């Protein structure tokens, strides 16, 4: 155990900090759940890419920086600590990206990853279907290989595809063996959203924004080169992706530590009001202890990964921990804000409260997406503890 950063790690952190200080947008970007905000974020991502700070853990040849995971954690700390914009292409970069690196052909990596790192291609995920939410093996959308083996023909429907109305590509699982059931006979496909036969219908979220979409496929032709991993092996490939999703990369500790800092500041600025409800102070203390615990766990995991360990069902403990902590921090902020909490950004009396409201609404989704926390608890019980199915 040696908790000092190496000179290389320190230097990288310094570089990130300096670059952000010089390049952060003066005004917060618009919400990326709007067309205009989406394109603002795309431009910002391009800027990050040009500074070689988009996907720091990817190999340089694929548009990355070749950093180790400690440097990645440091990057995240500097990035979120500076209040930099949310990352708009995470579904591609953090879910599909690692999958391509593990399962993609050299051609696929070269074709997809640099453009993804630069956000020239924006990716939407296509996991869920109307009757396959928590039960992902119930997928019915089909991708049938043509007789000559040159392409797949896709039919069916995906849903809850984040920002799909703005995105360029979709990745997800399709049933390529029509006689198969459950997790057999699925293939993992990348589908261009401008292909003939694709229809995208937005889903309006709780906050009124078009954050998700349903995607319909009507005889959509996709070349066989767009299949990631082997025919019929999609479940195996996707499970690796799901592991990453639930795990470390998607929700780095820095995001939550930033929220904790803001919450502590909010508490300190409103202490007399807040202390009338003693549970607030307790929750503020927990914001610090919880986010520190999450960060420490990440560093511990990264250290073990570096020594050859793999992330297993512990990833499910991560998902539960960050999602419930994030929810509690935002609930606590709402309690401190009191009657101001309900006001939206355009209400003059909201002052800066509406940021918390946005976060509170988004936090509601935390225990649901990427596998509900009920499913995660099942996984922990069955795979970590070995309890019977």
């Amino acid at each position, binding site marked *: 155990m040696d908790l000092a950063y190496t000179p290389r790690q320190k230097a990288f952190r310094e570089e990130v900090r300096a670059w952000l200080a010089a390049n952060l947008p003066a005004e917060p970007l618009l919400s990326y759940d709007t067309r205009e905000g989406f394109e603002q974020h795309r431009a910002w991502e391009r800027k990050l890419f040009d500074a070689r700070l988009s996907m720091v853990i990817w190999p340089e040849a694929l548009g990355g920086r070749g950093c180790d995971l400690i440097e990645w954690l440091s990057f995240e700390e500097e990035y979120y600590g500076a209040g930099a914009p949310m990352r708009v292409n995470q579904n591609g970069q953090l879910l599909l990206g690692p999958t391509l690196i593990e399962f993609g052909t050299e051609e696929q990596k070269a074709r997809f990853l640099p453009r993804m790192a630069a956000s020239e291609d924006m990716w939407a995920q296509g996991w869920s279907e109307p009757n396959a939410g928590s039960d992902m093996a119930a997928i019915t959308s089909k991708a049938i290989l043509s007789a000559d083996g040159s392409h797949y023909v896709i039919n069916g429907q995906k849903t809850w595809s984040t920002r799909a109305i703005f995105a360029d590509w979709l990745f997800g699982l399709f049933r390529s063996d029509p006689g198969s059931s459950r997790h057999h006979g699925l293939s993992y496909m990348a589908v261009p959203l401008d292909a003939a036969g694709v229809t995208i219908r937005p889903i309006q979220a709780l906050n009124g924004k078009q954050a998700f979409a349903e995607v319909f496929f009507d005889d959509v032709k996709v070349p066989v080169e767009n299949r990631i991993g082997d025919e019929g092996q999609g479940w195996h490939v996707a499970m690796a992706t799901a592991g990453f999703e639930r795990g470390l990369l998607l929700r780095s500790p820095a995001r939550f530590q930033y929220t904790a800092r803001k919450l502590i500041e909010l508490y300190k600025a409103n202490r007399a009001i807040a202390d009338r409800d003693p549970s607030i102070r307790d929750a503020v203390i927990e914001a610090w202890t919880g986010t520190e615990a999450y960060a420490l766990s990440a560093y511990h995991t990264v250290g073990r990964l570096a020594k050859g360990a793999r992330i297993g069902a512990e990833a499910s403990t991560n998902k539960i921990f960050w999602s419930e902590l994030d929810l509690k921090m935002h609930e606590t902020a709402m309690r401190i804000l009191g*009657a101001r909490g309900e006001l*939206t950004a355009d209400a*003059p009396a909201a002052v800066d409260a509406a940021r918390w409201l946005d976060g509170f609404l988004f936090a509601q989704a935390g225990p649901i997406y990427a596998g509900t926390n009920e499913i995660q608890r099942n996984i922990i019980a069955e795979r970590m503890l070995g309890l019977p199915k």
Partner: protein
Amino acid sequence: MDFTFTDDQLTFREAVSRFLMVEAVPEMLREIWETDSGRSPELRKSLAEQGLTALSVPEDCGGLGMDDVAWALMTQELGYYAIPDSLADAAYVATGLLNALPAGTAEREAWLGRIAEGSIRIAVDHPVNPLVADANPADLLLLANGDEVHAVPRSAVKVDSNASIDLSRRLGSVSWTPSAATLLAEGEAGRALWAQTLNRGALSVAGQLLGLAQRMLDLSVDYVAQRKQFGKPIGSFQAVKHHLADVATQIEFAKPVLYRAAYALAHQEAGVDARVSHAKLACGEAAWLAARKGIQVHGAMGYTWEVDLQMFMKRAWALDASWGDRGLHKSRVADAMLADGAALGPGHTFEE
């Protein structure tokens, strides 16, 4: 000792529920949300025709003279149907304030009469609320200036709109100048009116929160009974069952707290503040839990605009901090409970 409602009260509640079930369907809420004013004159008219604006108005002013206890049932229905109208503010909270004015006060009978006939919208200010609900569409505003109570026509105030996450709530920040012409009460009398108004406003909101909790529970039960995953309704999974059982339990134990507070208010008991605050806390917690568990068992569907749950969640989140946030109400409970000589333990639940 009879801590239940009369058959008449229960029958009236049933009638109101049946009426709102037809008049305040979720599709109508959605339509009204989209309008600029957020208010429907037709809806208010039909509420008035049904006599709902006249419930608290004393009989000699043309009303039904119903007390706080009956309103504890009414407000649950208003919450359950989440009506996009501030009916309770005028017909219950403002009516209570006006009713408490000395009988000789010039405008008292006139305004109460207009409330009863449903021809006036009244918005009520209070220092605990930074903004005034429905200030914009109001005809008359009851405004606080320190201890003073003023009744000010809409034309004499400037209102800046403030949007809430709940599109049924139309909040305004009000600029106005107090004058002798608008003064209704001051000093000790004013203080007493504002104190009573805070309790009535909090109780009104508490009842609505409880109704919202019940509605979110009902919506969730319906959803999990039909939504299938892994080959069976998700409502057959124990985790889902236990989420909703917890909501049902919280609701069950919040109800009598609301009723006890209403009685304390109607009978002006000395311990009314703590009782009302207890009700506000218990109902707020039930609604908050119903929202959290409701969205959880709805899964991604609960995160959409399309599914009705969102309208009730947003109302619950907004009302939770209105007419006093958790801190205010917890501190009122703690003050009563920790006071020297406080009557604690068994045997003090009713007699003081």
